């Protein structure tokens, strides 16, 4: 009885995995397919990958993506950490209100955030491009940083900040000596998650970028419209593997982070 139950459970999980990952497995297989026709297996090749790395506009989009992800994550970490400190010091009521407000960019449909940001930028007459995309990414990254750090504050033993001051540390020294080391895992996982989200984003980037500035996702989209080249399979496979590795890293970096990763990943 118990055994059948367990078998059924395993079957269920297997089915989920097949549905979720079959398309991606397909994608990865195709990226190694020597035949240009997708219906036929023409033998194993890394040719598309070589093509990819020689394609200058794609490589430029790749550099853009990485720079954007690093910068937006870094800025979001600074702002998000400061915000989390302020939130942690608030009383419960205002804290919950503010947390709700900061969460909106994360819960909002990307398309709404994207259109809203674009509207804002064009209204105040800012040239769409790298700057606007960076601002947008910082915007949606901040809540991930805050959400990763807040639980750390909750786990902080009471009064250690005051104890450090009591032992002679000034307010800033006390923060960096006893609070920061405690929230650091949250800061790191928040930064990693922000980095991942930035790489992962298409819609918001698409709406807030101007001509001439592409990330990988907008580049792929543009290419696909012209007809799919197998290089794009190779590129998508690389993005998938990168994000997968980042998520695995994240889930290792703390139990709180893991829960969030699950929610985000599904």
């Amino acid at each position, binding site marked *: 009885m118990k055994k059948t139950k367990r078998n059924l459970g395993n079957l269920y999980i297997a089915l989920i995995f097949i549905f979720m990952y079959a398309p991606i497995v397909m994608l990865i297989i195709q990226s190694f397919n020597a035949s240009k026709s997708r219906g036929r297996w023409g033998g194993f090749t890394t040719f598309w990958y070589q093509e990819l790395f020689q394609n200058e506009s794609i490589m430029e989009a790749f550099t853009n993506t990485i720079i954007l992800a690093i910068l937006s994550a870094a800025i979001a970490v600074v702002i998000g950490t400061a915000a989390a400190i302020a939130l942690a010091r608030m009383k419960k009521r205002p804290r919950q209100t503010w947390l709700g407000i900061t969460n909106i960019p994360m819960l909002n449909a990307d398309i709404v955030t994207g259109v809203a940001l674009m509207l804002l930028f064009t209204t105040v007459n800012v040239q769409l491009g790298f700057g606007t995309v960076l601002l947008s990414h910082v915007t949606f990254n901040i809540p991930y940083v805050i959400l990763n750090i807040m639980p750390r504050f909750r786990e902080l033993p009471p009064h250690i900040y*005051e*104890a450090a*001051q*009591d032992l*002679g*540390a000034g307010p800033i020294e006390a923060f960096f*000596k006893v609070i920061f080391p*405690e929230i650091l895992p949250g800061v790191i996982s928040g930064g990693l998650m922000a980095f991942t989200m930035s790489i992962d984003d298409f819609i918001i980037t698409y709406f807030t970028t101007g001509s001439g500035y592409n990330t990988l996702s907008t580049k792929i989209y543009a290419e696909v419209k012209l007809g799919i080249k197998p290089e794009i399979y190779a590129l998508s496979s690389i993005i998938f593997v990168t994000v997968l590795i980042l998520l695995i890293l994240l889930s290792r970096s703390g139990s709180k982070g893991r829960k969030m990763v699950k929610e985000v990943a599904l």
Partner: protein
Amino acid sequence: MSRALIELQHISKSYDGKPVLDDLELTIHENEFVTLLGPSGCGKTTTLRILGGFETPDEGHVIFDGKDITNVPPNKRQLNMVFQNYALFPHMTIADNIAFGLKIKRKTDKYIQDKISYALNLVGLQGFEKRMPGSLSGGQQQRIAIARAIVNEPHVLLLDEPLGALDLKLRQDMQYELIRLKNELGITFVYVTHDQQEALTMSDTIVVMNQGYIQQMGSPETIYNEPENAFVADFIGDSNLFPATFVRDELIEIDGRPFLCVDKGFGQNTPVDIVIRPEDVIITTPDKGTVTGVVTDLIFQGVHYEICIDVNGREWVCHSTEASLVGTMVGIAVDPFNIQVMNKPESEDEEAAAIEK
């Protein structure tokens, strides 16, 4: 008494419009063991935090060694605090925890090493340098918190219910440890507790607080034997706390029965409160007692029996080494100097502050 070290002058503090301390006046002397004693929420921690610099009073001044330190931040004050939940730094070893204050003061490595071993030795935890706080028991963490504070050689050590989280046996051991430490270090202790036994055991001076007011200040003996009002009498130990009439000097009436006392100057036929400690109630034969009553309860408490006696509808509690069987008729007598007469609270404010039952 030695030199005054700390003065709290007219300290008032409210949170969200709710007064927590009201015009508090307190002088703490050099080398004194002062205990702030009172029920939970009476403002003990707030007083300590004002001393430590973690709260600024709305009104009043904190004078330390003749200087006004009301607005001096905690890191610039020559006192150290032992927090209620130890507040050890979890990511640092015990040695790093203890060295924290010394490193900030840029002491030499040699000095720091010596201080760490000295402090660990003092609190009886030699060899704990490399351990992490999380791997220590509550009692051990408590000792480390104390060690971390005293290596800085503060003039005053502030302790907020430092033994509150420990079990009874450990708490009693630590009480003696703390007294020993204080004598060895020769510094001033300001100690917060809601445990009257702890206060009576450890202190030179007890400050009994209720609802932000100081109810009474004095030596443990004074506080115990001569409580100034019903709140203090009730809070310090079991007691028979009765309303009575002060007939004239050296004579009172309890429930219409005359008792001799030694107090004078409460007027004539004045309503007062009196307190008689259970161990001061003498049980005799009915004919020898000032009043008679019937034993309603007998509880063995180790050192003595607790005996409840019904005297015309009022329950007297006595402690005696001899048992009296439930249902027997007994006489009760009290030596005149064992009856403590107290003013009834006059104003409504005082009333609220004093009788909170």
